[in-house]
């Protein structure tokens, strides 16, 4: 054997255990989550039956942290349509299959097909595609836009695209996420379902002054809010007499401010907002 051959042989002998170890590791990982060459961009399992099965799988694998209705709890609220790890089908697939490193969310131990079904279900949480809400908007969206901008003054608190305030939820894609019935109820009875991050609180200071806004953060010693003037505020609890949460809706009830046509037009406009996606 030449010197070079010897060196190569030695090298291969040294590498062999490493190679075997790698194979073992791959085999172990493979047993748990078979590798797929590429994740499809579009969910291949989206029939009504798939979604139905996804609902059951969601209860088994997800509801422990995300709540029975995807409302969140230990895990994130899945009803908002916004996903921090990406909202495309393939991004959601990756998140569910691999988990989120550094969080409590581990990989979901289900087959690829089952994961797709779960995603089909998750994407319908909090969307307008509720089986019970099939109402169509009857108003004029163009007229509704004028109500939105002028008489309703909705943009002082809500944002569409880059325009508007921050006290209420963004509405850029509200027509994708919410149906007519829900929007109507929100306009007439805003207190019926206020998302937690937008619930109004009033901080009564020891001085007697009251500051209203939405809570941004809180611990045992302080509270942070966005006040109704869109200012960021922080108060030490030692300076606070009381925190009142009895008026969760900062939004006015529009039943007495808009007539029926204006309301219908506004709902038609909101329903037409489908966002950039």
């Amino acid at each position, binding site marked *: 054997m030449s010197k070079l051959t010897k060196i190569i042989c030695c090298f291969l002998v040294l590498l062999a255990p490493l190679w075997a170890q790698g194979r073992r590791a791959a085999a172990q*990982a493979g047993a*748990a989550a078979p590798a797929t060459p590429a994740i499809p961009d579009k969910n291949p399992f989206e029939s009504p039956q798939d979604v139905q099965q996804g609902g*059951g799988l969601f209860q*088994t694998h997800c509801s422990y942290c995300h*709540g029975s209705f995807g409302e969140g709890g230990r895990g994130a609220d899945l009803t908002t349509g916004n996903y921090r790890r990406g909202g495309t089908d393939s991004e959601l697939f990756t998140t569910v299959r691999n988990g989120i490193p*550094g969080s409590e969310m581990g990989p979901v*131990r289900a087959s690829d097909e089952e994961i797709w079904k779960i995603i089909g279900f998750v994407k319908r949480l909090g969307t307008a595609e*509720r089986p019970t809400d099939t109402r169509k908007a009857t108003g004029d969206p163009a007229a509704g836009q004028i109500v939105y901008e002028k008489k309703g003054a909705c943009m002082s608190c809500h944002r569409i695209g880059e325009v508007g305030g921050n006290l209420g939820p963004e509405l850029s894609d509200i027509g994708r996420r919410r149906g007519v019935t829900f929007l109507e109820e929100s306009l007439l009875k805003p207190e019926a379902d206020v998302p937690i991050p937008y619930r109004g609180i009033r901080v009564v200071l020891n001085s007697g002054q009251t500051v209203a806004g939405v*809570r941004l953060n*809180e611990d045992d010693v302080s509270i942070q809010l966005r006040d109704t003037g869109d200012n960021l505020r922080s108060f030490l609890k030692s300076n606070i007499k009381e925190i009142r949460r009895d008026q969760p809706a900062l939004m006015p009830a529009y039943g007495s401010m808009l007539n029926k046509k204006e309301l219908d037009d506004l709902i038609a406009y909101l329903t037409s907002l489908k966002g950039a996606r």
Partner: protein
Amino acid sequence: MRAHRIWTCLLAALAVAAAAAVPVYGQGLPVTYERLLNSDKEPGNWLMYSSNYKSWRFSNLNQINTENVKNLHVKWLFQGRHQEKFETTPLVVDGIMYLTRPENDVYALDAETGRMLWTYSHRNPPRTYNCCGKVNRGLAILGDRLFMNTLDMHVIALDAKTGREIWKETIYDYTAAGGYASPGAPLVVKDKLIVGMAGGERGVSGFLSAYDTATGKLLWRFNTIPQPGEPNFGTWAGESWKTGGASTWNNGSYDAETNTLYWGTSNPWPDYNGDFRAGDNLYSCSVLAMDPDTGKLKWHFQFTPHDLHDWDSTQIPILLDGEFRGRARKLLVWANRNGFYYVLDRTNGEFLTAKPFVKQTWNKGFDDKGRPEVIPGNEPTPEGNDSVWPGVDGGANWMSHSYSPLTKLLYVFAREERRTFTKNAVRHPTTGGDDGGGGFDAAAMFRFRRPRFAPEESWGKVIGIDPGTGETKWEHQVVTPPWGGVTSTAGNLVFGGTLEGVVFALDARTGKRLWYFSGNDRVYSSAISYLANGKQLVSIPVGDVLITFGLD
């Protein structure tokens, strides 16, 4: 020649003087079993997970006390640089701190400065199966060896002076059933290492193991679900005993006087659906009293028969000798995840009393054996039952409680919350079929208005409990149900931290908050206290940082 001898003597004397003034690393080893038994006599050290075998998590140090705690400030930080929950309890032996960092890394630090002395890393495979994070809760020490359990079901012995691996044994196949893990700290009893396991969310079959600390040899294994032919085998319907959970994922306690090991067990599996496991499902949700030499069961007490709410009884047993109704008794006290505080006679498991320490809706009382009278309507339902208190994470969870022999109060960082309990379609993680739907009506889900629990509908509270009666003597409320435990000291202080990162010291007699520090990240563990260079320090993990506080 003479001058030379004088110089030699002088140098030798200087060397001795220097050695006396400067602490020498490693001089605190070995930590004998005798020292572990008498850990209360070494208040400068933190020799085991719960500070002593009675699991009091109490420090006999009082340099930091109710008078001067207002001056407490940060001395040093250990930057964990990891993304997992930091659930460790460090050990401290004569100026050296040993701690685990996720996933299964071990660090030895100078306890006065936080400077690293050595490090050891156990690499887990990319995918492991602990239900709730790639966490580790700490080490045990005996002699000059440290012991750690791992997420991929190994138990490892390290040389405490170098971090060198001495032995590593496989506890079990971590991929079996739905997946096993061992996130807890082990417990040394005599020359044995008691090791638990997790997996109650994944259809495992629970056990507790004892290893020879010298060799790593498995000495005994107790199945927490009775096998065919063993007593209480018939408490599971059909084949459900094979996948019944009942894991042992936290730490235990030991009574040397009676040579009894006490250890809690987890929920039965499936967590929220009992249809296929009719019966009491022993020994899930129980405390086991065992002979640590043989692994034989002496007695058991089941807190929640046929649990449907994931109310593990893996809290750490606290052992007290106290008066109960005028009679001196050896007690075992337990603030359980099911929301009740229990007092048992630890010599025989006799139920003495129980009292709720958080809001609860499921139980109207106990028979004289301690069996709860369950109120109907609290079961999980397919559409989600959101009216049950406490919630799935319980009134107490795994976080440590503390007992102060000075105030004679038990301190519990309790959780007040409700949560939606959903009866899942049952599908075994590995062996179940493809009918994940299980007849579940997805459309029906949309018919319910989704429940939303506002932040103020749940909260946390540190409570001081009279251990004999279960009566709450004081309460300190915090914003969010906690995931950290509490530690009491002879300075009459109770230390802890909240999910928002508020590290606090309360007056152990009144619950009044005397000091706080805004750590601004989640506290997932409990504090320890110890001496470094003669000065009392307090360390607690906040976020991925271990923060150490001192007076000067």
